[in-house]
């Protein structure tokens, strides 16, 4: 072949393939890949987004779906820098999960400035959909308001005085505020609280302080993951829980129960959005997830799956990836999947859906490995989350 015609042919070929392959829709999953919460989200969340993309058919509005991921290393500045680079350089269309409230708020700032969508699953501070809300942020996972609903059944059963061990960052502070108002509303009282630096590994002095307060419930408002597990273990060593005293976290992940073991956690109550063994649909989804990735999905993984699916449906309905149009479309579609039942996406970006009050089983009750929760009650969406009428978000018109 002579060189020039060959080059032209090659050029046509390349151009042809470029035309045949439209620009992909990019989903960026920003994670803590190796830190203390990585076993609750991490790679599992990236897998969940991929699963949702594959379930959707791998394509939306005729464009292939690409799932990207990065590690924010638990640093707000790193997280914000990745978000910027993704949006500026890679043209990422939506950011997903973004665990750790401090990083979430930094990323929230970036997406508000760049007018790009983000769906927060792993970040529980309610500031995302309240004070710091913006038209581009959506909050899919539980927030501190929903978590604090756990105190109601506790107070009803006589555990009505509280002492908090609070992580000294936005998660701990907002959760403590929410818990205080929930406790006051339910007629309980708070006997005291102490803030704990994030890097703490020895909780003994804080636990002794909690013990001395005489509170019936010692609530560990420590971000989920290995830190919480450490605190729980040390609380057990100090003998903080007996018939009339409880050590609890307002949020318990199945994975933490697994690490701590049923003898240490039996009887604890928590509000969860998803439990793999809740019904036939959740079991089927979880088995499918496990068959592909080797472990059961955590509630955050299921949340990322749901968020990804909802985003893709929104894109399909809007017929574009334009952030404002997709956001508007997402408010119109029906969101009803394995994670979110009876769901509505509110104007402040909060997704409300049914939550479940669960109680950790006794060792005798647990039949299978990972069979940990008894379903106590279903909390309807409208009660589970802060009603829009009380919203602090300026986007909501009262």
């Amino acid at each position, binding site marked *: 072949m002579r060189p020039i015609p060959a080059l032209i042919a090659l050029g046509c070929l390349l151009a042809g393939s470029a035309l045949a392959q439209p620009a992909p829709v990019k989903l960026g999953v920003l994670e803590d890949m190796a830190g203390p919460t990585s076993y609750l989200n991490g790679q599992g969340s990236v897998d969940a987004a991929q699963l949702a993309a594959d379930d959707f058919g791998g394509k939306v509005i005729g464009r292939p779906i690409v799932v990207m*991921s990065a*590690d924010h290393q638990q640093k707000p*500045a790193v997280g914000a820098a*990745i978000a910027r680079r993704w949006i500026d350089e890679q043209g990422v269309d939506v950011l997903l999960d973004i665990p750790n409230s401090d990083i979430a708020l930094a990323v929230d700032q970036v997406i508000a400035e760049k007018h790009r969508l983000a769906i927060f699953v792993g970040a529980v501070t309610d500031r995302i959909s309240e004070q710091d809300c913006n038209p581009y942020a959506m909050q899919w996972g539980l927030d501190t308001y929903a978590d604090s609903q756990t105190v109601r059944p506790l107070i009803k059963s006589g555990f009505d005085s509280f002492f908090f061990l609070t992580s*000294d960052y936005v998660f701990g502070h907002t959760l403590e505020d929410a818990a205080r108002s929930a406790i006051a509303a339910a007629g309980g009282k708070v006997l005291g609280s102490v803030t704990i630096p994030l890097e703490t590994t020895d909780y003994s002095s804080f636990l002794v302080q909690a013990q001395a307060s005489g509170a019936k419930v010692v609530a560990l408002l420590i971000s989920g993951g290995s830190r919480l597990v450490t605190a729980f273990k040390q609380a057990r060593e100090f003998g903080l829980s007996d018939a009339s005293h409880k050590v609890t976290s307002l949020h318990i992940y199945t994975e933490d129960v697994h690490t701590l073991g049923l003898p240490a956690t039996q009887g604890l109550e928590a509000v969860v959005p998803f439990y793999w063994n809740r019904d036939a649909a959740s079991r089927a989804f979880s088995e499918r997830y496990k068959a592909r990735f080797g472990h059961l999905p955590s509630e955050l993984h299921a949340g990322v799956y749901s968020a990804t699916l909802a985003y893709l449906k929104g894109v399909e309905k809007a017929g574009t990836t334009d952030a404002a149009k997709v956001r508007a479309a997402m408010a119109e579609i029906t969101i009803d999947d394995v994670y979110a039942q009876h769901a509505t996406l509110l104007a402040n970006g909060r997704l409300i859906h049914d939550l479940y009050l669960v109680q950790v089983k006794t060792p005798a009750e647990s039949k299978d490995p990972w069979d940990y929760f008894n379903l106590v009650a279903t909390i309807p969406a409208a009660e589970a989350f802060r009603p829009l009428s009380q919203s602090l978000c300026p986007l909501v018109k009262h």
Partner: protein
Amino acid sequence: MASAREEAAGHAGGLGLSRSERVALAGLAALLVFGPFAIYPIFLMNALCFALFAAAYNLMIGYVGLMSFGHAAFFGMGSYVGGWTARYWHLDPLLAIAMGGATGLLMGTAFGWLALRRQGQAIYFATITLALAQMVYFVCVRATGFTGGEDGLQQVPRGRLLGLLSLTSDRAMYVVVAAIFLAGFLAIVRVVHSPFGQVLVAIRENEPRAVSLGYQTRHYKLIATIISCTLSGVAGAMQAIVFGIASLENVHFSMSGEVVLMTLTGGMGTLLGPVVGGFLVTAMENYLAPLGNWVNVLQGIVFVACVLTFRRGIVGVLGARTGWRL
């Protein structure tokens, strides 16, 4: 020490630059001008902040031989004060960056005065600066009202330059950052090539001899420290303005380690070395980010390889091979 011929050549130019240095500086200026057309501007701005920080650090370790292990304190506090004044006092971005520099200046004066009271081995200076920087770090962790604690000081606005030009566009911000970097870098070049700088080098090479020549070496060391800390504060404040956030990692001792890494890999005691090192380390962190924590392992390997095989750093080795003074 530089040979007499080089010394003579060194004093020929306006800033006292040798020919090879002028060529290198022209190359750097060209990179600054054309860089943003090829490279992601935010990455460039981040790299320039670190390059200025490393160049400032190099003034101490490379030219005076003072090993500070607490430079994160000046960089980090610079970014907190710069960010805080921009956010709450609504200062002009230039003024906010100047406030960061002023913070570095004040802290550098206090820390330098204290740490230089201990004469003798470098290890004392290193440990005292490290200890002071750790104090600063823990104050920052607890002073959540000022620093935001673990959350960092967020929502720092880029503001409007002189009240006129909005810096929200990355291009506009880049021009400001590049100008400040260049000013800071040229200031260091000027200091190094001044008679004052020659005394610094003399102190590095043989302090007792400099004393015997009648120099008050402590004063010289203190002034060099203050200049270095001021520019570190400027670099920190600039970074806070660019990214809109000032966080604990900037005051953490690993940042002090990182600036040592930048200076050593680039080439300690060379003018361009820290800049090259700053770009290299930032590029590794930026482009290898998908590897997560493995970046730290890679940085360690690079550091070990650098110390084992080319102890003078990239620019140092390049200079030695070619005979240029860079």
